[in-house]
């Protein structure tokens, strides 16, 4: 068995008898009760996730802004402090090293990069390798931070009333504040990965454990990574390794809006400019099956008897009941309304290419 890390909330998951599975090098809760109930709690009330496995890498120093803009696809130059941007780090060929959030800290010349758990070591090394010639300090603090995501329409009320943080009500989406809870510093961010309104708390492990206990006591549903995936999938958010990877560029994934080719330079720019001009060979699309079958990652997509791609993520959508998937297919077939077939074991099932957002996001502000 591989050597798996435990988050600071491991004992809490054990106490709740969560089903634990390896994910991104950590042993993580997949579900506590069942995925459907946890999913619905987030869509209609509030749920909380242990996301302490995510990585926190700080970049600071006189060249921090120029350096982050060099390795990141979005443009942080105009970004005020306490704002957050989503984007990717790219290889020169346009493939994705990782997708991440960049937080501009209130402290001058300091940024927090929040990266995927499975990619922490790879990202840390990548960032260091690119930093030659830049006056920056790279500090991978992933082991020193815990993180909870509180998501759902009731999230704001809970942060204000239960945790007593009134300024949460004024936080706009994709902004954060460095505040205090229970005398301890907490970074409170209005972000998430579910398509619902919500917050993410970053703090020292013992603070995160106390926060978890408080939220649990207030009746917030503990939610595992199982429903984190069904939630993000329904609103068309990508998961690294599925809809983005070293082989799937942001343009192929339909995420070109997060790649600012009007920036003077960034790693991968030439490839992306070319992909935008010439088009890519493949594209991520949505497919809705017209028959009852569940398309799973890796299942072939066929058209006119030919394999044209494969499923990247698929479910029976919990919120809509529909049988849907995202798939990476040959671009020449990627038109809305086209009829395709998904091979599920020995049979094929008819489907229609559609938007990859199967359920509307419900962000508050």
């Amino acid at each position: 068995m591989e050597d798996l890390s435990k988050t600071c909330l491991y004992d809490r998951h054990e106490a709740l008898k969560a089903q634990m599975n390896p994910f991104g090098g950590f042993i993580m809760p997949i579900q506590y009760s069942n995925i459907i109930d946890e999913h619905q709690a987030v869509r209609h009330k509030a749920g909380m996730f242990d996301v302490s496995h995510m990585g926190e890498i700080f970049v600071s120093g006189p060249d921090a802004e120029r350096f982050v803009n060099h390795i990141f696809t979005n443009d942080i130059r105009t970004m005020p402090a306490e704002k957050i941007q989503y984007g990717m780090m790219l290889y020169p060929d346009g493939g994705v090293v990782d997708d991440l959030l960049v937080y501009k800290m209130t402290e001058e010349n300091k940024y927090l990069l929040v990266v995927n758990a499975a990619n922490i070591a790879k990202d840390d090394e990548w960032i260091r390798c690119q930093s030659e010639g830049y006056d920056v300090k790279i500090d991978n603090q992933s082991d020193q931070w815990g993180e909870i995501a509180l998501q759902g329409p009731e999230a704001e009320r809970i942060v204000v009333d239960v945790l007593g943080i009134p300024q949460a009500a004024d936080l706009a989406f994709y902004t954060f504040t460095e505040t205090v809870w229970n005398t301890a510093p907490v970074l409170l961010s209005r972000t998430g990965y579910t398509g619902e309104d919500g917050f993410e708390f970053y703090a020292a492990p013992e603070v995160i454990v106390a926060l978890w206990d408080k939220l649990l006591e207030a009746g917030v549903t503990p939610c595992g990574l199982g429903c984190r995936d069904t939630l993000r999938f329904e609103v068309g958010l990508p998961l690294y390794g599925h809809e983005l990877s070293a082989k799937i560029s942001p343009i192929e994934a339909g995420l070109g809006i997060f790649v600012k080719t009007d920036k003077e330079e960034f790693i991968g720019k030439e490839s992306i400019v070319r992909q935008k001009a010439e088009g890519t060979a493949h594209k991520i699309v949505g497919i809705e099956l017209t028959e009852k079958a569940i398309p799973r990652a890796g299942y072939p997509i066929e058209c006119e008897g030919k394999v044209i791609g494969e499923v990247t993520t698929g479910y029976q959508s919990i919120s809509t009941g529909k049988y849907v998937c995202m798939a990476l297919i040959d671009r020449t077939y990627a038109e809305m309304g086209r009829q395709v077939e998904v091979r599920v074991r020995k049979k094929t099932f008819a489907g229609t290419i559609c938007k990859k957002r199967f359920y509307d996001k419900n962000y508050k502000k």
Partner: protein
Amino acid sequence: MKTIEGLYYSESHEWVKTEGDMAIIGITDYAQHAMGDIVYVDMPEVDDEVNAEEEFGAVESVKAASDLISPVSGTVVEVNEALEDESGLLNQDPYENWIIKVQMSQPDELDKLMNATDYAAFCENQ
């Protein structure tokens, strides 16, 4: 985890109950628990041939598809149509809700399967 005396069990977590040369096949409590909410059962059709240790269908939970592996060889004589609309029955009572009935062609294949005690020990070590 629940097991039932008198049934045969496979390493891929199917159970077999015999009535003469007829094998009634389902999934175990361990399997339904590991899969979570079952949302769909992909079953063969009556008269299909199944082979021991080969896939004959799949059980789909919210998160994944798990192949159903036949513990015995033979011909499908009945499928549990109730599961088509109510696959969650497999979560509620996996031993009461069978999946297929097979007319066995080689009943001695049952000798390769585990009894309830051995199966419980097998699951402990999973």
